[in-house]
C-alpha cells in the first residue's frame, strides 16, 4: 500500500515533443485514480513514467516515501496490466502468474500456494495448466490481473485493460476489477479513454488534454462541475450541451430570449453556456424554442437531438414523456447552468 506523489513531472521526447506538461498531484493510499482523456493526451505516458518504462524528463516521483525516478520497474513494487494483456504465449497460466515471483527468488512451494490463491480469487483454477492461446479474451484479462495481484504490489497500474473486450464483458470486468481493488485495498492508477469506465470505477478522475491536466475530481464533481468546456464535452454521454450565450447586467441570456439565470457580477459579455441534457425539460410554457431533428430511443430514456436557433442541442427525457420531431419548447433548470469563458473554455 502506498501513496503516490508526482511533483512537477514533465515528459519531453527526444524529438522535442512535450507529451506531458509539468504536472503535480498526489494519489492517496488505497485510492483508485483514473486518468482519462482522448488519444494522445499523455495519459499513457504518465502511467508509463510511474511504471518506470518511460524516463522522467523533469520532476520527482514518489511511491510511498521513496523517490523512484531512477529505480528499475522491477524494484518499484508495482504491477501493470496491459491493453493486449502481454501474457507469455509459451507459458501456462500457472507459469505466467508465477513468473514474477520466480524471478524474485521466491521458493517454489510459496509460488505454488500464491498462484493457487490468486487463481481462486479470479476463478482461474481450472485453467491453470492451459496456455493463453486456449483462453477467451476475458480469461486472458483475468490472467493478466492474476499476474498483478499475485505479487501483492504497493501499486496497480492499468493501461486500458478492457479496450480489447466486447461491450458486455467490459461491463462485467469493470465491476470485477473495481471489487478486487476494493478488497485488496491496493492503490491503483487506471488509464482509459472511455469516460464511462472513468465515471464508474474511479474514486477520483484526472482528465487530461494535450499533455495537461484539465481537472482532478470525484466522478460527481467532474460530471456536475466541469472545470472547462473540454471536460464538459468529454465526460458524459451524451456530452453537456454547449451553446453561445451572453451576460448582460448579470443576466444570462441566449440571444432573443429572456434571462435564464442571474450571474455573479464578475463578468459580462459573450460566454459559452453549458447544461446537461437531463437538466432540460420539455415544457409548452418553456422560455426557449427547440427544434427536434432526431428522436433516439434508449429504453430507459430517450434523447432528442436538434437545434436552438442554429446551435446543436440535446435533451434527455424519461420513457413516459411523449415527444415528436419538430418545433417544441423547453425549460432549462437555472441551477444546472454552467458558464464558461468563450475563448479559453475555462469555467467562470
Amino acid at each position, binding site marked *: 500500500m502506498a501513496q503516490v506523489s508526482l511533483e512537477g513531472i514533465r515528459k519531453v521526447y527526444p524529438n522535442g515533443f512535450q507529451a506531458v506538461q509539468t504536472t503535480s498531484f498526489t494519489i492517496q493510499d488505497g485510492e483508485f485514480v483514473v486518468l482519462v482523456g482522448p488519444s494522445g493526451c499523455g495519459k499513457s505516458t504518465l502511467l508509463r513514467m510511474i511504471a518506470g518504462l518511460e524516463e522522467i524528463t523533469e520532476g520527482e516521483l514518489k511511491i510511498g516515501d521513496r523517490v523512484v525516478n531512477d529505480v*528499475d*520497474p*522491477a524494484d518499484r513494487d508495482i504491477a*501493470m496490466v496491459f*491493453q493486449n494483456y502481454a501474457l*507469455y504465449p*509459451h507459458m501456462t497460466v500457472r507459469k505466467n502468474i508465477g*513468473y514474477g515471483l520466480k*524471478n*524474485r527468488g521466491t521458493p517454489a512451494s510459496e509460488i505454488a500456494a500464491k498462484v493457487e490463491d490468486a487463481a481462486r480469487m479470479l476463478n482461474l483454477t481450472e485453467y491453470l495448466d492451459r496456455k493463453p492461446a486456449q483462453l477467451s479474451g476475458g480469461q486472458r484479462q483475468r490472467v493478466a490481473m492474476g499476474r498483478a495481484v499475485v505479487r501483492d504490489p504497493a501499486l496497480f497500474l492499468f493501461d486500458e485493460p478492457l479496450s480489447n473486450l466486447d461491450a458486455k464483458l467490459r461491463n462485467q470486468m469493470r465491476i470485477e476489477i473495481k471489487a478486487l481493488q476494493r478488497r485488496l485495498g491496493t492503490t491503483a492508477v487506471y488509464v482509459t479513454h472511455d469516460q464511462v469506465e472513468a465515471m464508474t470505477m474511479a474514486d477520483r478522475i484526472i482528465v487530461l488534454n494535450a499533455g495537461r491536466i484539465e481537472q482532478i475530481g470525484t466522478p460527481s464533481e467532474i460530471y456536475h462541475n466541469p472545470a472547462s468546456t473540454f471536460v464538459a464535452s468529454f465526460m458524459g454521454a451524451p456530452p453537456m450541451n454547449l451553446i453561445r450565450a451572453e451576460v448582460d447586467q448579470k443576466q444570462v441570456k441566449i440571444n432573443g430570449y429572456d434571462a435564464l439565470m442571474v450571474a455573479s457580477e464578475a463578468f459580462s459579455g459573450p460566454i459559452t453556456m453549458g447544461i446537461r441534457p437531463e437538466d432540460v425539460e420539455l415544457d409548452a410554457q418553456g422560455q426557449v424554442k427547440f427544434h427536434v431533428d432526431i428522436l433516439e430511443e434508449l429504453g430507459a430514456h430517450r434523447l432528442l437531438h436538434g437545434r436552438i436557433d442554429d446551435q446543436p442541442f440535446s435533451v434527455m427525457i424519461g420513457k413516459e414523456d411523449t415527444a415528436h420531431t419538430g418545433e417544441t419548447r423547453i425549460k432549462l433548470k437555472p441551477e444546472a447552468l454552467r458558464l464558461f469563458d468563450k475563448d479559453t473554455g475555462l469555467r467562470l
Partner: protein
Amino acid sequence: MAETTLETPVETHRPRRIKWGAIGDHTVLILGALLMMIPPLLALTTASHDAVTIHREGLQLTLGDNLGKNFHAAMFEKGGFTQTVDGTLMLMNSFILGIGFAMGKIIISMMAAYAIVYFRLRFATLAFWVIFTTLLLPLEVRILPSYEAIQKLGLTNTYTGLIVPLIASATGTFFFRQFFMSVPEELAEAARIDGAGPWKFFVDILVPLSRTMIAAIFIIMFVFGWNQYLWPTLITTDESFFTLVRGIKQIVLSYTDSQIPEHGQALALAIVAMIPPVAIVVFFQNWFVKGLTESDK
C-alpha cells in the same frame, strides 16, 4: 405463404469432366520429381558394381551385386594418403561441422538481432545494415584474409578453425530481427516489471518464442554447413578432419600405383553424404514451414 412442393431432384447425367489442368500440373510435377531423382538413383545403382566395371562401362542402370561391399568399404575401410580415415570418421566430422555451423550461426545471429532490436543502441540501424551488407562478402571473397587469420591463430586442423570463421550470418540476423520486431513490445515491458533482466527475458521468453524459427534456420544452416567444401579443404590438411564431401573427391582422385579409382565406393559415400540433409528436411519440414510462415505470439 408460398406452396411448398417436394421436387425430386432432376437427374443430370453430366459426363464427369476431365480436369486437364490438374493432369497437366501433376505431369509437370512428376516429370520434375523424376528428373531430380535420376542422379541419386543412378548413383545408387552404379555403386552396386565393382570399380572395374564402372571404369570400363561408365554409369550403370541395373543393380549389381557389390552394393554391400562398396558401402562397407566406403564406411569402414581405412583409406586416404595416411590410411587412417574411414567413412564413419568423415561422417562424424560432417556432423560436427553441420551441427556446429548451424548452432553457431543461430546463437550468433540471435544475439546480434537481440541487441539490434531490444537495446537503444545509438547506431543500431547502422549496425544492422553493416551486417546486412556482409551478404555481399561471402567466404569466397574474403578467403585469403580469413585463411591468414586462422593460420596465424594456429587454428588450422582444428574444429574451431573449421567452424568459427563461418558462423557470422547476415541472413540469420535478418530473419531473427524481423521476428523479434513482430513480438509485441509489451511482452518485454511485462517481463521487465516481472523482474526479468535482459538475459532472463532472452532465455525465458524470446528463445522459447523463437523455437519454430530456430528449427527452420537450423535446417537451412545444417544443410549449408554439411555441404561446405572450399573452407574445409583449405583449413584442414590432416585427414582425420576430413568431411564426407571432401572424402568423396579423395577417393576418386587416388590414382596412385596406376590403380583404378574406387568409383563404387565414392558413389556409396556420396549417397551416405546425401542422407542426413534429406532426412532432416523430410522429418522437419513441418517445423520448417511453420517457422518461416507463422508464429504463436
